[in-house]
């Protein structure tokens, strides 16, 4: 999974897509910097290298769709709401936090978006939501982001069984970054994700590209099928550029290098330098300004009821 998968030129994106990609990238880099300076409490899991997954899916998911995210969910949230202020305030425990600072990085609920910090737990819940949508709001779907490591949890299989059996509009997006915290996928998974989906009669689609336009084109008809109550597992072969959380990366240098070689950020900069550098500078400065502004806010308040 650490091979260089895609050496083709990345297609040109609209400014809005590139800005969103860069927003997630600089947001995550800023978090690591803030943690490094001891300005954040607890821990965080950045999605560096994986930003293009939720950005690709963004226009394919509507406001009626439910999204379930996981511990590595900042990109998922930003692709849904473009609200870096609220998310950073949540992570920093400042006024304007999405969840008052109670949930923090990995427990966020806003409208039809919900993240939890326990692996696999959200799949059965998403199945329940999909059951509701199928009956009450046909055409809407429940999308769940999980990782390769999540497939170690039995809840995944119980939920896949239900999704197939009950024909639920459930979209499972797997961000297979080849490593679960410190454990390589090869050391924790027998067989394959495709084989596991097949066992339940659930369609599986593999995405190896990092080209947002190309991914969207390939997924669009498949997502439409999900809306027609055909559950789907989409497996992105992706790369986690950063550590699992912060400063806990024990991967060999060549594995980290392979992740860097596949990084859309560097590749896009090479392929479209003018657009890239114009927006990169802009977004970097914007994130800096957001961080300064949010850090200066008063502490968040928990309005218990």
């Amino acid at each position, binding site marked *: 999974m650490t091979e260089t998968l895609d050496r083709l030129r990345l297609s040109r994106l609209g400014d809005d897509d590139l800005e969103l990609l860069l927003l997630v990238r600089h947001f995550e880099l800023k978090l690591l910097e803030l943690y490094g300076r001891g300005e954040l409490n607890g821990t965080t899991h950045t999605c560096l290298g994986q930003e293009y997954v939720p950005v690709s899916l963004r226009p394919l998911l509507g406001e009626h769709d*439910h999204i379930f995210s996981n511990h590595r969910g900042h990109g998922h949230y930003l692709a849904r709401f473009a609200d870096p202020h609220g998310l950073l305030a949540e992570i920093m425990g400042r006024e304007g*936090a*999405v*969840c*008052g*600072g*109670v*949930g923090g990085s990995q*427990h*966020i*609920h806003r409208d039809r978006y*919900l993240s*939890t910090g*326990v692996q696999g*737990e*959200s*799949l*059965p*819940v*998403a*199945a*329940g*939501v*999909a*059951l*509701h*949508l199928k*009956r*009450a709001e046909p055409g809407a779907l*429940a999308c769940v982001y999980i990782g390769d490591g999540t497939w170690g949890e*039995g*809840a995944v299989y*119980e*939920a896949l*069984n*239900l999704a197939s*059996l009950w024909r639920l509009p459930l979209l499972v997006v797997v961000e297979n970054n080849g490593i679960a915290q410190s454990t390589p996928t090869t050391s924790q998974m027998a067989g394959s994700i495709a084989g596991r989906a097949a066992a339940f009669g659930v369609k599986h689609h593999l995405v190896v590209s990092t080209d947002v336009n190309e991914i969207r084109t390939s997924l669009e008809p498949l997502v439409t099928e999900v809306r027609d109550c055909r559950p789907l597992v989409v497996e992105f072969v992706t790369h986690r550029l950063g550590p699992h959380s912060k400063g806990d990366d024990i991967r060999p240098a060549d594995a980290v290098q392979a992740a860097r070689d596949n990084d859309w950020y560097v590749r896009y900069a090479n392929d479209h330098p003018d657009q890239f550098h114009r927006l990169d500078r802009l977004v970097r400065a914007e994130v800096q300004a957001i961080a300064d502004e949010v850090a200066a806010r008063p502490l968040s308040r*928990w*309005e*218990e*009821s």
Partner: protein
Amino acid sequence: MRVAENLNAALHGLLDDDPTAYVLGEDVLDPYGGAFKITKGLSMRFPGRVIGTPISEGALTGVAAGLALTGNTAVAEIMFGDFVALAFDQICNFASKSVSMYGKRLPLRMVVRCPTGGGRGYGPTHSQSMQKHFVGMPGLSLYEMSPFHDNRAVFTAMLQRGEPCLFFEDKVLYTRQMDQVDPMFRVRRDGELAVIDLEDRPDCVIIAPGGMAHRTLAAMKTLVLQQEISCRLLVPSRLYPLDVDAMLPHLGEVVLVAEESTAGGTWGGEVAHLLHERVWDRLRGPVRLVHSRASVIPTAAHLESEVLAGESTIHDAVRKALRG
């Protein structure tokens, strides 16, 4: 009316009154109607809202939470309460947490039904009282079925809390009659508390959840006839959080808590602590705890009855509390 029929009627009533209500669980569909027949007739009357699931307690509880999250009312049946261990993550880390961990209250109308307890020879993994494992979880309320509480009203109360509830149903109650009590006793209700006694100033007060009520009443009868000891029984519907204030007017100098749970980390220990904080000065001694032995629950009838707390355990505990 038998308790099982009352519970069945409550579920019929709920599905009838609430078009968003779902009942789901293993083998709950007609004609089987659930391992204990509590869901009998439901799927015939409400097809589509009564859902038979695979043997996946974690998933079916998660599905219930997902239905609740989208504004529905969800009642999940765990076939034997022991198996709620398989749904612990969904209950502890998802459903109960979701009520408050997102910063503002997220109401969930969700009940997980748990047929509970021993006395029927089902053995160590089908006879436990799991209540104690869920005591003290923020966002989770615990209720217990009782012959003195109409189940329709209890379901209304649970759902009005807007947070997940576990409903423990002592299996031995299913075949007993609602409100069954020896005519020597008087029964009254004070809010959600059932109060059963012989006179205004009893020698001793016993707090017991619904499943222990008939065993406590049997002990109370022999105590008064053989020992001239007069007891009062208090049966709360909600075990946690416990409404201690509602109990205070009914207490005396000697108080016991009786439950079927095996020893160690019991609900009664929590009740005793709450009472000690409030009425220590009024008590003749510490609140006494009556529970089953610290043991697995054996299958053979003679062994099972040695382990489980019953009429004689309560009888002896009361005598000891009063006469040493």
